[in-house]
């Protein structure tokens, strides 16, 4: 993929080395599947937490109509703080209910 001979050589070596790591079981398929699974789990949990201000298209549309432009950065910061607060509260809730 790379344009110079040295870079090409390194990339080819890396491809061979990656095959070796798999073949020898140094990085087994289960480990890679676990990585994917763990990230998906983390993503699902993160998206479960409320983030009203940053994820609600309705809130944005309303804010655009009723809030004057100079005040919007302030509102955006307030929204982000609210989200962080909600996230912390949700974390505690998950911890209490054993879902953390």
């Amino acid at each position, binding site marked *: *993929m*790379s*344009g*110079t001979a*040295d*870079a090409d*050589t*390194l*990339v080819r*070596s*890396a*491809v061979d*080395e*990656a095959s070796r*790591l*798999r073949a020898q079981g*140094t*990085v087994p398929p289960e*480990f*890679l599947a676990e*990585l*994917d699974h*763990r*990230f998906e*789990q*983390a*993503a699902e*949990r*993160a*998206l479960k*937490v409320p*983030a009203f201000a*940053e*994820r*609600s*298209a309705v809130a*944005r549309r309303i804010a655009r109509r009723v809030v004057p*432009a*100079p005040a*919007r*950065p302030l509102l955006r910061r307030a929204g*982000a703080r609210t*989200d*962080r607060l909600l*996230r912390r509260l949700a974390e505690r809730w998950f911890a209490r209910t054993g879902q953390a």
Partner: protein
Amino acid sequence: MVRSHRPGVTRPAGIDQVIPAIVEHDAVSNHTFEAQRLLRELGFDSEVYARIIGPGCDGRVRPIDELPRAFDASRWVLYQASIGSPAADVFARHPGRKLLDYHNITPARLVERWLPPLGDETRLGRKQLAELAPLVFYAFADSGFNAGELTEAGYALARVVPVLVDAGNFEARPDGATLARLGAAKQAGGADWLFVGQVAPHKAQHDVVKALACYRRAYDADARLHLVGREMGSAYLDALRRFCRALGLADAVEITGSVPTAVLAAHYDTADVFVCCSDHEGFCAPIVEAMHRRVPVVAYATAAVPETVGHGGLLLPSKDPVLVAAAVHQLLSDPPARATLVETGAAQAARYTLGNARAAFRAAIEEALALA
């Protein structure tokens, strides 16, 4: 001074810029300010109008409502396109001759799961880009990849003008305290991986973490990863933190948030390798900065990344975490090859000087004048 090459064509007295949002520490915003400086040096009156004006930009930027709407043949307007915005409609309605500078718009599919409103904005941005095509007489973009997207969107002319990057930022002196902290950790052993960019789903920091996990398992159990950049929405950042905790990498992965330039310089100066697994980059200025600061680059070859890296780094055909880990290992275990790559990287970065970018921008304006 720029001269119009065709008799009878009036050279505009002013070229104003319109941008959806302008904030500090942002590549497109910095580019816009530098473009304003250059336009003024070229003898044009030039103001910047923005719909959203971030802290620290007050006084340098005017609200978009103040953009003159009466026809004035002596004023052109240049739109900085990077997201969907009502600012594009204001630009479209402006009666003056129109130029457009395209910085790429992230595909909605990469962000909408995490930030649905951003998905809407990026989708709107691509729609507006196509709608503006017949109204714009001269367009340019900051990479060949982006220029290709302009052509696909219907622009008859799409030149490449690199980002007006302030090289001064690349020369920042590293912060002493950060250098000491990172240096002490390095003495205990373990390679330092670095990625710089917004903590955002399309930058795929989670894929860098996966590669680090493979690297630690196969080669270096003490390796660390430093992710520098402000967050784009809290959900992805939250997921990334949870992911690191779940893998037992909370101590090995540092997520710094936005940092001052000197702290960033310290991270570059202590990094062993810059690893980029982004799914989408319209240019990727941090890759240039890494090459400039002599950090070898390993990157997934997608979007504009191959063009930015050139011959100056390892471009991988996939971001399979085992391959990324193996590539970093090949690089770090072969000092002569690493040294060669650092040299070619520095040479590639040297192409992106502010002087070269300014010359390209000036040439674009001259060509626009000639075509007007």
